[in-house]
């Protein structure tokens, strides 16, 4: 079974971390340990202006972003992960912008479905319904919520894939594992 991609645009970063503008944003908030918390990530992303004209990310969304890439469950993110996140965010933003044609800062319920399909997720109507119920606020989804949804989809897909050892599209979950994996997202 083919798993969806992350919709990130191709293209690398300039060689040499010092010239990397991303490193500038990151190191401005990171401490000596080179790791950032959700609060620091929020400050960092707001500084970078990646949200453009959209409202900056909520703390909750930043927490989700950290968890998505947090292999050691430390609750913090290093620079390499931050770079991965940046790529993903640009991809998601691009998708969102293409659907927010009236530049209202929100997309409609139907557009959310299409956007999710654009990201490569081919979900059943039931799964789509669950997502819609969770994110649609009177039929409208703002950018922050869209990113939150995309982060969760990616994190859950990663978790599922790790348990689908023979790529059959089905996975085995033991109860304790299920609880922890699902709550960590």
């Amino acid at each position, binding site marked *: 079974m083919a798993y969806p991609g992350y919709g990130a645009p191709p293209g690398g970063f300039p060689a040499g971390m010092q010239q990397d503008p991303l490193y500038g944003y990151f190191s401005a908030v990171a401490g000596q340990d080179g790791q950032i918390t959700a609060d620091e990530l929020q400050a960092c992303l707001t500084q970078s202006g990646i949200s453009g004209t959209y409202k900056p990310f909520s703390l909750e969304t930043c*927490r989700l972003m950290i968890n998505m890439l947090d292999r050691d469950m430390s609750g913090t993110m290093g620079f390499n992960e931050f770079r991965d996140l940046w790529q993903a965010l640009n991809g998601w933003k691009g998708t969102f912008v293409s659907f927010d044609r009236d530049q209202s800062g929100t997309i409609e319920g139907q557009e959310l479905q299409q956007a999710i399909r654009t990201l490569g997720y081919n979900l059943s109507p*039931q799964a789509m319904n669950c997502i819609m119920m969770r994110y649609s606020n009177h039929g409208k989804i703002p950018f922050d919520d869209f990113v939150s949804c995309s982060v*969760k989809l990616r994190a859950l897909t990663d978790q599922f894939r790790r348990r689908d050892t023979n790529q059959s599209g089905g996975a085995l979950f033991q*109860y304790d594992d299920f*609880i*922890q994996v*699902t*709550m960590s*997202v």
Partner: protein
Amino acid sequence: MAYHSPYRAPPHINAPPDQSFLWNIFQRVDKDRSGVISDSELQQALSNGTWTPFNPVTVRSIISMFDRENKGGVNFNEFAGVWKYITDWQNIFRTYDRDNSGFIDKNELKQALTGFGYRLSDQFYGTLIDKFDRQRKGQVAFDDFIQCCIVLQRLTDVFRRYDTDQDGWIQVSYEQYLSMVFNVV
């Protein structure tokens, strides 16, 4: 290898309250005298010990648990259930808040959830605190503690529905997994 059913307060842990006692409380909480206690009325009546409003998500969960008519509030009959539910949680919270700080820290949370029958890794308790602690104190207040337990319970319920042979393992497809989880987290 069956998993325990998480703790439910044994019946009559307190003597069932006097009807007129309950009625007095109900009238005080039902400020607009509509005969139904709304989300906001319940929220105003509850304290989480932090001088900030009680978690509205938790209020909604509690009301919907006891609102048998989907009216968005609870009448006097249903309120008895709400009162008992909250009183039970107060007792549990007091039991596990061993240092009487008014907050449950990571260790106390571990004691509580282990007591309820959950078997979770040490690191995961940190994840839980991070996820539910709205006060950003690194510990959970009364309302956030309830919210954490409610979500754990919901996940357990959803797992049980799929665990038809009750052996603590489920086999699910990618689609099923997403549908199960997006409803809850």
